[in-house]
């Protein structure tokens, strides 16, 4: 199951549906809003998604993880909207019989979600600037003082 949410992510609640008695291992990953990125002090950030497509692609990733690894259950939730330092940006939980595949499926899911889902992160810096992350043109343009990603 893949979800997008504008509400704070609560791992203990999300884990509930994965508590199967035939599972001996549970691997999870959380992304956290970090206070700096590439040398800049971050104050907060905004996640924007192309919701319809992100949900479809997220479900695809979940199904791929299930097919590639002999896991019992997997769930991923991505936050959208404005997030403060320390908040959870994404949560992935994988329950399985053995730990090996739980780790591998969790790793697979986070990598695929980050690479493929139409979700964008805009960082708000302490100095008042902002930038869309992953947009190499933004910083290049910035140096040339042309139109930029910052506002």
């Amino acid at each position, binding site marked *: 199951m893949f979800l997008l949410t504008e509400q704070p992510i609560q791992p203990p609640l999300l884990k509930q549906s994965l508590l199967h008695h035939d599972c001996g291992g549970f691997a999870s990953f959380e*992304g956290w809003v970090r206070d700096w990125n590439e040398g800049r002090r971050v104050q907060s950030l905004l*996640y*924007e*998604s*192309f919701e*319809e*497509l*992100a949900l*479809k*692609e997220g479900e695809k990733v979940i199904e791929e993880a299930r097919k590639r690894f002999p896991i019992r259950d997997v769930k991923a939730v*991505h936050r959208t909207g404005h997030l403060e330092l320390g908040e959870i*940006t*994404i949560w992935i939980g994988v329950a399985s019989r053995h730990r090996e595949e739980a780790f591998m499926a969790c790793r697979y899911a*986070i990598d695929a*979600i*980050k*690479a*493929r*889902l*139409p*979700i*964008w*992160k*805009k960082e708000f810096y302490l100095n008042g600037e902002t930038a*869309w*992350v*992953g*947009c*190499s*043109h*933004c910083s290049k*343009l910035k140096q040339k003082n*042309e*139109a930029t*990603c910052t*506002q």
Partner: protein
Amino acid sequence: MTMDQRSYQLQYFAMLKEWAGVDKEEMSSSATTPRELYKELRDKRNFPLSDTELRVAINGDFTDFDHNLAEGDQIAFIPPVSGG
């Protein structure tokens, strides 16, 4: 040579949305593929990203830049993502 003009629904996200100044717009064009359409759009909007840096989705599904467009298609050019 006269070209058929078709109407497309464009959706913008993230930096493209900021550059365009709108989150969607209707566009009339003789372009028959996303590649042609983005070329036209880039000239018009002065977007700094080339199509090699984008993906494209039509009617809510990823597709390729040589896909044949149809009247009324909803088209989203997907700038580099940074989720998670």
